[in-house]
């Protein structure tokens, strides 16, 4: 039995190198115990040259992309499952996309869950300004709690979007730092929540006023913005009150009698265009 400990940073790339090396050596899936842990930055360094000399396995590009996505899932079995699938694909014992294969079905479902988690991270990270607003590069920080270890996969999006500012996104697993255009990762030592930001009051004002109380539909909101995200969303503290007061506000609108226009209104209105 071989124990392969993948590094916390660069996990997916290290898995790929290891999987390629093991496959070349003909190691069977049941002979490997995969884990992800701290100790492994050096192990990755050893694995890379060996992996690099082995000719790469050819797999459908779609398969590689989906597998790398699924490897960001929190399921401890994901590395073993992906290695087993790689071997079977390479040996022609499995057709990519065949959902009647339970392992492949599970991998595809996990990839989907990871994709959703990444999408929600892109949506629900909330930056707070931590530098001076007039600094040449403004600085922001956020604390976010995804379901899966997706920090490395999800944060290049922020580097593309917020290219002219420095930012930190800390998660319970890894912290991403973007400074002067360079993105790097480190292990998160302590939970870091940046202090509130004055612009949040404006955002809450907007959130409260874009809501139409006559259309209250709470389940439609919570299916897309589940409660587990609320504690890191500055606007979410308003939600219970908005829900509670909505029926009365909607009723008041309906019950109010229509009003007559002011006398000067007729003068303001233009003629109908042709």
């Amino acid at each position: 039995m071989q124990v392969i400990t993948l590094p916390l940073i660069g996990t997916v790339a290290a898995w790929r190198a290891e999987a390629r090396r093991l496959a070349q050596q003909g190691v069977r899936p049941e002979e490997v115990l995969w884990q992800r842990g701290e100790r492994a930055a050096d192990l990755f360094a050893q694995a890379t040259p060996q992996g690099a000399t082995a000719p790469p396995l050819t797999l459908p590009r779609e398969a590689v992309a989906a597998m790398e996505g699924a490897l960001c899932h929190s399921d401890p079995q994901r590395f073993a499952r992906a290695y087993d699938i790689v071997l079977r694909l390479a040996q022609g014992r499995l057709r990519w996309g065949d959902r009647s294969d339970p392992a492949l079905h599970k991998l595809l479902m996990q990839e989907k869950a990871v994709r959703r988690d990444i999408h929600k991270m892109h949506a629900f990270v909330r930056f707070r300004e931590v530098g001076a607003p007039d600094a040449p590069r403004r600085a922001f920080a956020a604390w976010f709690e995804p379901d899966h270890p997706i920090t490395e996969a999800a944060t290049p999006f922020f580097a593309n979007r917020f290219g002219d500012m420095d930012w930190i996104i800390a998660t319970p697993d890894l912290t991403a730092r973007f400074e002067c255009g360079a993105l790097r990762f480190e292990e998160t030592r302590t939970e870091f929540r940046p202090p509130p930001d004055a612009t949040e009051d404006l955002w809450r004002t907007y959130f409260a006023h874009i809501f139409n109380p006559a259309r209250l539909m709470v389940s439609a909101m919570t299916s897309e913005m589940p409660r587990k995200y609320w504690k890191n969303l500055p606007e979410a503290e308003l939600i219970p009150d908005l829900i509670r007061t909505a029926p009365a506000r909607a009723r008041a609108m309906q019950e109010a009698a229509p009003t007559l226009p002011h006398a000067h209104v007729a003068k303001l209105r233009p003629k109908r265009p042709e």
Partner: protein
Amino acid sequence: MVKRTLTEKLAILADAAKYDASCASSGGERRDSRDGKGLGSSGGSGICHAYAPDGRCISLLKILMTNFCIYDCAYCVNRVSSHVERARFSVEEVVRLTVEFYRRNYIEGLFLSSGIIRSPDETMADMTRIARTLRQQEGFRGYIHLKTIPDAAPELIEEAGRWADRLSINVELPTEQAMQALAPEKSPRTIRRAMADVRARREAAQDKSHAGKRPARFAPAGQSTQMIVGADAATDGQILSNAAQLYGSYKLGRVYYSAFSPIPDASQLLPLIRPPLLREHRLYQADWLMRFYEFSPGEIAPQGGMLDLEVDPKMAWALAHREHFPVDVNRAPREMLLRVPGFGTKSVARMLEARRHRTLRYEDLLRMGCVLRHAQPFITLPGWSRAPGLDDAHLRARFAAKPEQLSLF
């Protein structure tokens, strides 16, 4: 008038904008700011950054530049005869809100519309100035959607299209009579002319000239429109064939349907009703079937012209056309698989792929993401013996939504 704070203006002008359903930020150009010289990115499918308790996605900062308006559209909270509080943003205020919200990852960009102040041209010019300032001065590369004023001068529309990703013009009401009665200053003809103009400019912008020179960019994410549902007597059939015509004639990206909603300070012309949310929902489903499932509007809207509120339009069609079922999942062509309730475009693509290698069994459908509870009566394949027959008189009742669902107030 006392000077309002930015917070007060934001409250008034978000209130004024919330009846517009559109909030999409997808498509258009791929841009990013990895070069460190600007802010923002766009392209691909837009992101909903929050959801309000009405279930609507908040993707853009959706505000009016001003809610002063000289028109008198009866359904609108901003009409000249309404007593709502009025406010007006300066160019700088809109720019600042957009950039500061964007930097905190609250939004994908700006959706700006406006009441009509003094003249359509002046209003459009101010809106264009906001978009230009964002792009040129702030290096903003996020999404911009401008609601254009139909009567504004062509040069202004052209400039708006240069800075914006999407332009829209609301047709507002499904029929000309309703327009006459409820939006007396607006002209359906002008609106359609403006849409045709946007379409022509977009096509011109996509054509390379003979010299190979690229023409100026123009609204790369296309144009959209909104129709208010339930303020007049138009049937769903009329609304859908109107939409089909808009998609066809003006190459619209989206038609939005907005259930007529109670507004503060209603007009005498238009008594308030509960917003017909379920009807709005069915219209979106029907619209989806027209765009992705090869249904024509005539097929979806039944004889009486109104969609069935109790079952979704695809199920309603299948129930009314039982002679086409059951469908043999291993043999039926794509068009027919798409008509099976519970089968989506993705699962149909998976079935067609898998069919090339082997015979599909019932268990396979489960893993392909089909809603089998809906599909069961309408299919045959190995591993499934049809339990409730197509001739079952109670079939419809099995799928009818419980009346308390989506009931509001």
